[in-house]
């Protein structure tokens, strides 16, 4: 297993020689947003621990999330969440054997990125209206 990585056999063409395709970019984005959400859990834990600790600690966290930088992070977090969710729903259809036609896969990939941006903005509009 590990030994096979040391020899000099030719490798099949890899990512860098292909023109980026939308399905491929969305696949990479699914993994990157997943990894980002993984570390974003720190923010959720921080917020909940502060809420459980008392008003002083909560004010610090609330101040951070209310700042421009904090909101920028939360906006990115929202997009990662929505994008990963839409990408995941796409995977459910693939798991059921549907949507593998090239034109469908391309259309759904575009719908994922456009839909995730639109839904994120919608969530933030609702958020600001609800204040």
């Amino acid at each position: 297993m590990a030994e096979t990585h040391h020899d000099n056999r030719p490798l099949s063409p890899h990512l860098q020689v292909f023109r980026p395709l939308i399905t491929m970019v969305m696949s990479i984005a699914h993994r990157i947003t997943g990894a980002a959400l993984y570390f974003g859990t720190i923010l959720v834990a921080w917020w909940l621990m502060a809420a459980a600790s008392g008003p002083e600690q909560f004010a610090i966290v609330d101040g951070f999330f209310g700042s421009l930088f904090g909101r920028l992070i939360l906006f990115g977090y929202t997009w990662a969440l929505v994008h990963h969710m839409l990408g995941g729903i796409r995977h459910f259809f693939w798991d059921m054997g549907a949507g593998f036609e090239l034109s469908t896969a391309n259309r759904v990939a575009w719908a994922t990125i456009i839909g995730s941006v639109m839904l994120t903005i919608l969530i933030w509009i609702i958020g600001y209206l609800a204040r």
Partner: protein
Amino acid sequence: MMRTPLGQVRGLGSAKEGTGHFVRQRLTGLANVPLILAFIFILISVQGESHASVVATLSSPLVAMIMLGVILSAIIHMRIGMQVIIEDYIHGEGLKFLCLAANTMFAAAMGLMCVFALLKIAFGG
């Protein structure tokens, strides 16, 4: 299945847990859809509220259960997801083992903090 006696001794090769991971990743993913939507709804409704008001919302039974559910489901999901990433990119056995251990510990730490905080708030500590 091809498996040499040496591979068997070293414990390399399939651990026969792949299907379980595959199914669990999809089950938690499916559960995450409504749970995350509810989570977003809860966050929108408590944003900008005072500490007392946020605690009051988080301690109501339905909200507390949804929050516990989303934490548990998301953390199981993200642990499996990160394991896949580690196994895809890290090939040295030693470093891979360390990364997989760190992944489990990170997931456990996040889960413990969130669950402890939610229970403390819910039971009024």
